[in-house]
């Protein structure tokens, strides 16, 4: 049976892993390559490295981190953050990434998704969507924000996910800005709305705090994979323990691995 995936995410700034709460308030948490390998050994099904600064000066630092990580990591490895063109994507693939996550640049130019997919295959292109609840009650919807959650786009998350799929995305990485870093559970309504609208895998992100949150997002949220950062690298929830709990709840898991 196809398992649900547990993905460890490393938010990287200037070559170091950091983690914020609701996209701000960063703190240092270690070396990305070392942490990626440790997560792989602990049972992570994939590793995602998100370059959250993505300034020009930090680009070569990032590529070096990608190279060091990829040399020893033999599970799927995604790199995102600051990928604005096919050339940016190519540099990251050349350094050893298996997939790239595109976000703001795809919002500005949806054809970028197709350009990368044409050269590297759809399986190599993840469209990352940062979504935020807008309005209340019956009028509530999920808006899309760009540039690390800083700018509203006027787009609807469900519609954008569908467009991304049609443009050639192989997966959707869906982050709830409302839940990011809060550790009080994923936004299952958001995840379910997007998962029901597309036929490609949806990775839920934002809000992981305990095993029950993962069970909820796989059941109610219909997620194919769930991503977490701080609970893994701060050692709050060891991945192995989480996978055992999920397996006990009859969520199909790659465990032991």
């Amino acid at each position: 049976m196809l398992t649900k995936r547990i993905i460890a995410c490393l938010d990287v700034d200037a070559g170091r892993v950091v983690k914020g709460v609701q996209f701000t308030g960063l703190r240092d948490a270690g070396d990305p390559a070392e942490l990626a390998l440790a997560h792989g050994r602990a049972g992570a099904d994939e590793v995602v490295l998100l370059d959250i600064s993505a300034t020009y000066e930090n680009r070569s630092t990032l590529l070096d981190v990608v190279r060091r990580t990829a040399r020893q990591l033999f599970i799927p490895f995604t790199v995102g953050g600051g990928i604005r063109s096919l050339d940016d994507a190519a540099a990251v693939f050349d350094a050893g990434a298996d997939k790239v996550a595109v976000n703001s640049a795809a919002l500005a130019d949806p054809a970028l998704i197709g350009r990368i997919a044409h050269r590297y295959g759809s399986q190599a292109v993840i469209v990352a969507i940062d979504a935020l609840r807008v309005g209340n009650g019956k009028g509530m919807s999920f808006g899309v924000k760009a540039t690390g959650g800083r700018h509203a786009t006027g787009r609807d998350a469900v519609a954008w996910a569908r467009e991304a799929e049609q443009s050639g995305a192989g997966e959707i990485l869906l982050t709830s800005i409302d839940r990011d870093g809060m550790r009080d559970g994923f936004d299952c309504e958001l995840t379910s709305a997007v998962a029901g609208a597309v036929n490609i895998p949806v990775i839920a992100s934002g809000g992981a705090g305990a095993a029950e949150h993962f069970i909820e997002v796989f059941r109610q949220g219909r997620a194919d994979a769930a991503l977490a950062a701080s609970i893994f690298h701060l050692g709050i929830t060891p991945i192995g323990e989480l996978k055992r709990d999920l397996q006990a709840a009859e969520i199909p898991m790659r465990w032991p691995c």
Partner: protein
Amino acid sequence: MIAIVDYKAGNLASVKKAFDYLGHESAITADPAAISRADKIVLPGVGNFEATAALSGPLQETVVRMIDRQVPLLGICLGMQWMFDSSREAPQLRGLGLFVGECEKFPATVKSPHVGWNQLQVAGTSRLLRGLPPDSFVYFTHSYRAPVVDATVGKCEYGGSFSAVVERGDLFGVQFHPEKSGAAGLHLLRNFCEL
């Protein structure tokens, strides 16, 4: 030396990195002369079956000649599908026809592509899978699949059974990505290196 055939179908570097890690010399090459000198050949690749059009001509002739000389050949993902007769993904093209059958899409009852870790059901004796724990998990990412045939030694279940591993003599094919399948995948690649 293991020749990793470069036909511009996705990122081949991860396959090479796995061989580097295992301590076996390999080279990514599109040069028929270099491939002719190899003692093993890997046909990697992801994406559309149309990409295999780049193999026709000298590359295909070289690969076929090497197969005749019983040089072990491992097709990965799209590379494995090319070892079958054809694929509905690009019906105008022919595969190598080393394994009988046509690759087809997953049924509409399941999400496609099939992305993630799924269990390998060992279905026969295999040199490639020797020593691999039964029901090992391996990483898949594909929209088309090869049917279960006589040469199938590993099956997988997703909207029905399909070939995850085929093997006959010195011909091997895997639908999943051993270079991305953790310890299980490295085990399989080591078996191939040590043939």
